[in-house]
Every structure is written in C-alpha cells, then in structure tokens.
C-alpha cells in the first residue's frame, strides 16, 4: 500500500502536476509520525502511512506560502477529504488546486490495523467514497458517550464542569492552530474595539472563547479531533464540537464535508426549519 | 413477488362469481395468487362503526398473517376489504401508540413497513400490456360504463388511488380488452349499499339514477369492481332496464378467452348473454 502511495506522489511531482506533496513522515517511532512537505519526486520515500497518522494535514492548505507555488498534492485520509470539501465549499481555494491521494485506515490508532488506498481521484469521487464509509455514523463511541453523560446533568452541573475544564485553558490557541477550519486572518479573539472576548486567561474570557470557537465550527467541523489532541491542558474540546455537529445533523440533516457543492447550513435555510423553541 | 389473495366474505357468498373470475383470470394471465392462510373478516361496516379498536384489529390480523407468510403485497378484490385494510394500516403507521394497542389486541407483531394493499383495478393495472397481448376475443364495439362507487377512491387522502372525482383507471383496464368506455356522469355516485337492508327504496332510487344515465350514454353494460355495487346494481334494476352488470375481472376474462360459465356470468340476476354475444 505504501508503495502505491509513494508511486502516486512520485508521478504527481514527476509530471509536474503538483509543486508539493504534503504527507506523513516517519518520526522517532511508528507511533510518532509528523507532517512532511515533499517537493522532489526522488524524496517520496520519506512518506509513510500507518494507523498512527492522526495529524489533519489539511490545516496547511490555507497557510499563505503553500498554494502560490502551484497545485498541492495531499495525502488525504477521510478527515482530510472532508476538510478539503469544507474549505472548497468556503471558497478558500478551487478544487483543482489540491490533488488528493486518498488513503484510509480500518481502525485508526490501532496497532497493525489495515490501511488501504481510496479509489476516488477527484474531490467529488472521494467525498462519495468517504460518505459511503462515514455518513450517518456517530462520532467515536467514547465521545458520543461522554456527550450523553454531560447532557444528563443539570445546567448548573454542566456549568461547573466546563468552568473547571476551562479553568485550565492557558489561551495558547493550539486548538486554533491545529484546526483546518480556523483559517481567519484575524481571529475574533484578537478583535478589540469592541473587545469581543476578554483576552486574559481568566474564567469569563476562557468561557467565551471556547463557546464561540465551538459555535464558529457549526456545520463545518468534521470531527477529526485535532483540537483536543493539540490542547496541552487536555480540555475535551471535541465534546463541544461533537455536540454542535450532532445538533446540526439533527436539525438540518447536514453533516460537514461530504459535499462541497451544497450551501453550508449556517449560510442557508429552509422555510420549514424547526422552531419549537421560539414562542 | 408473492401476492397474498384476500377474498373476504363477499367473495365466498354473494360475489362467488367475482372470486371465480379472479381465479380464472389469474390462471389465464399466469399471475400467482396465494390465498392468505387463516384470513378473517375485514370488519367492514359492522366493526369499524361500532368499535374502533376492533375495526383496526380485524384487518391487522390478516395483514400480520400475510407478512408472516412471506407475502409482499395483498390483493383484496372487494372494495370494502381493500378500503379497510388500507385505512387501518394508515392509522398505525402514523402512531406508535395505536400500533402497540393493535398488536396487543391481536397478540401478533405488525410488520414494520407497510404491506401494499391492492384493489381489483390496482391489481390489474401493472399487467395492462399482458392483458392486451392475451386478448383473443376483443370486445370491440362493446360500450361499457365503468362504475367506481365510493369505496374505491374515497377517502382520497388515505387511499391515494386515482382522482376521486374523475377516476380513469378502470377505463384504462377496460379499454385494454378492446371495449369502449363511455363518458358518463355517475361513475362515483353512491349506489346506497349501506342501506341495502334498511332503506331499500332509497337504494332503488339511487341505482336507477346510475343505470339510467349509463344507458342514456349508450352503455351496453356496467363494469364494477366491488361486490356491494354489483349486488345493488344487478339486483335492483327498474323494469325494462336489463343492463348487465359485470365485474371488471369478468370483462377481462371474456376478452382473454375464458368461458363465460367459468367466469360465473350465469350467476347474475340481470342476464348477460345478449350483451356479450
């Protein structure tokens, strides 16, 4: 499988179809892979792929210095495919600027789990292929279960829970850096006049930041979990994201990243959208 | 596709010729019918007017049996039977509470997905091309008045079968035999079936209006797809009317060459022979 992957990358670079391939490279151990940026066909052997490749590489696509060099080849797990779908849907680049090398692992994170190449070549084909695998499925069992646990609490208990979790937030914004959807030039947390969100790492600002961050991912988060893994303080940000994603799915029958040609749910509406909560 | 056949009580009694013609026709057209084992009364009129749960439970049992016997759809030729089966099913499909109550009453599980129920016209419609090729004795020159009555098309929201005020499906089937459907005004008027016993005079008046109009528009016979319609129109003809009333399946049966006797045409009160000669 890895040879097929390298061969695709070699062809793309060799034929000049892309100027750069972004993929996973070998780290100190198979468990520790890190992103590699390959510009020469003879360097493709640096690429590896195994169940421990968990970085969402789509995060690099919106970085200023990536695209201008030419089209980009991207080793794309279902997470990257869906991220790219959202980014294209949001006009961040045209679909033909990214050549996807589709890969997938049967059980990410599990030692020895089978990995394979995806069949699709175009974004549309890969969306369909990934949708076939993932659409309609719940997020990871443990996340879903913990969301349910929280939902069973009283609002007061939940507030106390998040107050405690957020109290550890040091406002390093690693969550933002790791997220492909956080591509704003100037994040709202940096907005002053008026100051949207208090900037110091104190309870109110932490609360506002984490809630608004989750809201800004409504209909956009594809659930890769990069934010939570990036958080040095171990705040379970994926719970907030999963909750929002579920509400979007239940209310608007929409899941992010399976079709870049439909309007995003938070920029569209149906006249018969639910409204039982409105008096 | 296995079709469950639900004759209902009429077809074992007053409408035996409807049953005969269906079985002959199915054979002639090579359509498989499997009678639902241990079917029971659909509850028409008597049950659903008196006890709502009973009105649901009776059809429910037959439907549950059909599903359990691996039948994918039900053919209920009697218009009252098909009407009750469809109407009852619609009630529990939209309401889990009703479903649970009905399941408790019959002590059987109802199928999760709706079982399609077909009336006589609906059953023949998909086979229209087959009928056309099977016609050996085209009924050219026979003018027929297709009569729907009320139960085949009403209530429209539940049955969702044809246009309730201006249905055309029976004409489509009749035309496949070479017969010529006439345009007439009483196709969906009531024949008074429910008052057959209690107010015979009313029924006679209603039937007369229907038959007179059919004849005035040049019909040689009236075609029906409901035992009650048939009984009333066939039995309560005014003096000198002599307008034969045939089941749709008898008409098609004739055209595909089934012998009139096998179709039960001799069982009618108003003689048929002259009209089909």
């Amino acid at each position, binding site marked *: 499988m890895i040879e097929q992957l390298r061969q695709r990358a070699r062809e793309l670079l060799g034929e000049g179809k892309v100027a750069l391939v972004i993929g996973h490279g070998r780290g100190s151990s198979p468990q520790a892979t890190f992103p590699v940026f390959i510009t020469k066909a003879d360097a493709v052997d640096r690429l590896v792929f195994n169940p421990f490749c968990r970085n969402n590489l789509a995060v690099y696509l919106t970085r200023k210095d990536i695209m201008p060099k030419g089209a980009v080849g991207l080793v794309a797990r279902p997470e990257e495919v869906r991220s790219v779908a959202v980014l294209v849907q949001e006009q961040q680049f045209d679909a033909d600027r990214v050549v996807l090398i589709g890969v997938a692992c049967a059980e990410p994170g599990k030692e020895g789990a089978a990995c394979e190449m995806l069949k699709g070549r175009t974004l549309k084909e890969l969306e369909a292929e990934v949708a076939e695998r993932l659409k309609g499925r719940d997020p990871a069992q443990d996340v879903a279960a913990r969301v349910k646990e929280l939902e069973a609490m009283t609002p007061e208990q939940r507030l106390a829970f998040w107050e405690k979790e957020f109290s550890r937030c040091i406002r390093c914004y690693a969550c933002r850096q790791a997220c492909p959807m956080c591509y704003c030039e100037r994040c*709202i947390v940096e907005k002053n006049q008026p100051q949207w969100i208090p900037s110091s790492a104190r309870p109110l600002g932490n609360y506002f930041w984490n809630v608004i961050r989750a809201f800004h991912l409504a209909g956009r988060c594809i659930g890769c979990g990069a934010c939570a893994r990036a958080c040095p303080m171990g705040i379970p940000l994926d719970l907030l994201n999963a909750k929002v994603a579920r509400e979007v799915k239940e209310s608007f029958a929409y899941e992010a990243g399976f079709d870049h040609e439909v309007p995003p749910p938070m920029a569209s509406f149906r006249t018969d959208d639910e409204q039982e909560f409105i008096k | 596709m296995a079709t469950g056949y639900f004759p209902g009580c009429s077809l074992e009694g007053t409408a035996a010729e409807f049953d005969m013609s269906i079985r002959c026709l199915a054979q002639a057209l090579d359509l498989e019918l499997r009678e639902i084992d241990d079917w029971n009364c659909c509850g028409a009129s008597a049950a659903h007017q008196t006890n709502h749960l009973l009105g649901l439970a009776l059809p429910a049992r037959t439907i549950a049996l059909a599903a359990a016997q691996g039948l994918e759809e039900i053919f209920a030729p009697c218009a009252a039977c098909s009407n009750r089966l469809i109407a009852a099913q619609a009630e529990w499909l939209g309401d889990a509470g009703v479903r649970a109550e009905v399941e408790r009453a019959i002590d059987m599980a109802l199928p999760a997905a709706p079982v399609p129920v077909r009336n006589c016209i609906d059953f023949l419609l998909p086979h229209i091309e087959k009928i056309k090729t099977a016609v050996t004795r085209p009924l050219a020159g026979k003018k027929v008045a297709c009569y729907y009555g009320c139960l085949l098309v009403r209530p429209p929201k539940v049955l969702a079968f044809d246009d309730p005020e201006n249905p055309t499906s029976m004409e489509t089937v009749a035309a496949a035999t070479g017969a010529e459907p006439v345009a007439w005004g009483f196709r969906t008027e009531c024949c008074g079936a429910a008052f057959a016993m209690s107010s015979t005079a009313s029924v006679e008046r209603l039937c007369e209006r229907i038959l007179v109009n059919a004849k005035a528009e040049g019909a040689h016979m009236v075609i029906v797809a409901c035992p009650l319609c048939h009984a009333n129109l066939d039995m309560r003809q005014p003096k000198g009317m002599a307008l034969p009333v045939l089941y749709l399946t008898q008409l098609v049966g004739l055209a595909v060459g089934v012998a009139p006797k096998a179709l039960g045409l001799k069982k009618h009160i108003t003689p048929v022979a002259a009209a089909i000669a």
Partner: protein
Amino acid sequence: METTTAEFEPKIIAFLCNWCTYAGADLAGTSRLKYPANIRAIRLTCTGRIEPMFLLKAFQEGADAVLVSGCHPGDCHYTSGNYHARRRWTVFRKLLEFSGIDPRRVLFSWVSAAEGRKWSELVAEITAQVRALGPFTSFERIVKA
C-alpha cells in the same frame, strides 16, 4: 422558602428587530398594555443582525435572561433575516445549554408589529418565569472571577 425569590427583580435584556417586535412593543405602548418593567430592549435592524456574542455580552453585563425577538417567518422586512437567525439560534442555544446556561434564560419569540398584546403577555410571562428561576448567580461567579 417562597419569599427568598419574591424580592428578586430579574434583569432581562431583549434584542429586537426594528420592523416587527420593536414596532409590536411600540403598539403595546400606544395600546397602554401594562407589563413588568424588568425588560430592556435594544433595537437592531433585523434578527439576522443579532450575533451570538451579543447574548454572551448581555450575560456578562448581568442579564438574568436574554430575549431575541423578530418577525414571524415569511414576514421579515429583509425577506430572509429571521430564517438565518432561526438557524443560528437553533444551534447556539443548544450549545449554550450544553455549556451550562439554563435554556430557560435564553428566550426567543416572533412578535409582529401587530402583536402588541402578545408582547405584553410575553414579557409578563418570561419575567415571572425568570423571577422564579432566581438570579443567575452561577454565571455571575464566572464574570467576577
């Protein structure tokens, strides 16, 4: 124990669209329909203009509840602002609930320019409801920390 909250007068901050609910509240005034004085209305162009951050800011400033109100579906002065708003609040109120803000403190309504009576009754109803909930001390704790 009932007396503990009887004294409490909640602060309710309302964000109203100019064309329907603000006008409906004007109509309540011209009709002299009485309601409790706990509500403070901020006039905006459209419910479509109202941002989630406004609600958080209102809680920061000590609101015990917030209300967002605008035109009924189909009546938006700008055609579709309320439809977009409806989607926004569908998600945001669930997120707030999940992050610990009692949904009974985050309220939404459609009040048309003709519904002065609905406005007065709504304000009376939600004021009583929030009064019964008591002050939003748990959030105040976060604000003051």
